[in-house]
C-alpha cells in the first residue's frame, strides 16, 4: 500500500512491474491511468493545472487504500497522482492493484478511483480559449462513489 504525489511524470511500466513482482501469489494486476483530454464541456483545453492540499493529500489517499484493503482480498496497491500544470495526453493519475484473482483486482481498482475522485483533495483548473476556469465536480462522480456504500 503506497501513495505518491508528484510534479514529475511517472513510468507506468516500472510501477506496474514493481507491484506485479512483489509477491509470487499475485495472479492479477488491474490498473488505471487518468489522462488530460484536449476537450472538456465542448471547449478546447490547452493546459490543466492541478492544485492539492499538501498537508492532507497523502493521508486521504492512504485512508482510501486502507478502506480498499479492508473490503477486498488484495495484496498491494499504489496511487500516484500528479500536481502542477499538464497538457492534453499527459498522465494525471495511476492506480495499480494486485490480487490472486481478477475480480478483486478490478473492483478494488475501480473503487480506489471512485473514492479518489470524490474524497482526495485535488482540484483542476483548465485553460481554454475563453479563459481559465476551475473544473466543477461532476454528479456522475458522486454517483460512482455512492455505489460502494
Amino acid at each position, binding site marked *: 500500500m503506497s501513495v505518491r504525489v508528484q510534479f514529475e511524470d511517472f513510468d507506468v511500466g516500472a510501477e506496474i512491474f514493481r507491484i506485479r513482482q512483489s509477491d509470487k501469489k499475485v495472479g492479477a494486476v488491474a490498473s488505471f491511468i*487518468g489522462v488530460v483530454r484536449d476537450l472538456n464541456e465542448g471547449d478546447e483545453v490547452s493546459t490543466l493545472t*492541478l*492544485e*492539492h*492540499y499538501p*498537508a*492532507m493529500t497523502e*493521508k*486521504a489517499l492512504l485512508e482510501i487504500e486502507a478502506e480498499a484493503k479492508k473490503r477486498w482480498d488484495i495484496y498491494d496497491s499504489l496511487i500516484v*497522482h500528479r500536481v502542477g500544470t499538464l497538457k492534453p495526453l499527459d498522465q*494525471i*493519475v495511476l492506480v495499480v492493484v494486485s490480487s490472486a484473482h481478477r475480480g478483486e483486482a478490478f473492483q478494488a481498482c475501480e473503487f480506489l*478511483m471512485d473514492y*479518489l*475522485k*470524490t*474524497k*482526495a*483533495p*485535488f*482540484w*483542476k*483548473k483548465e485553460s481554454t480559449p475563453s479563459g481559465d476556469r*476551475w*473544473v*466543477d*465536480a*461532476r454528479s456522475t462522480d458522486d454517483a460512482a462513489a455512492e455505489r460502494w456504500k
Partner: protein
Amino acid sequence: MKLKLVFLAKLRERFGASEEILVVDSESPTVSDIINLLVARGGAWAEELSVDRSYRIAVNQEMGGFETLVGDGDELAIFPPVTGG
C-alpha cells in the same frame, strides 16, 4: 484561541489568501461558528460561504461537518468539492 485557516483552489483565489491565522473569542466553537464569523466579513466571504454554496471542510486534515468542534491550534481548511483523478 487561535485557528489556522486554509483556503484552497477557487476559494483561495476568491478570498485572495491561502492561509490566515484567526483569533477567536469563543472557547470551543463549531465549524459553523467559524463560518459565520467569515460570512460576516461580507463580499466574497458571504458569497462563497452562503448556505446554498457547496463547499467542504476539513479539520486537522480530516473531513468534517458544520457541527465539528475546533480547538486552539487546529487547522480548518475550506475548499470546493474535489475534482482530481
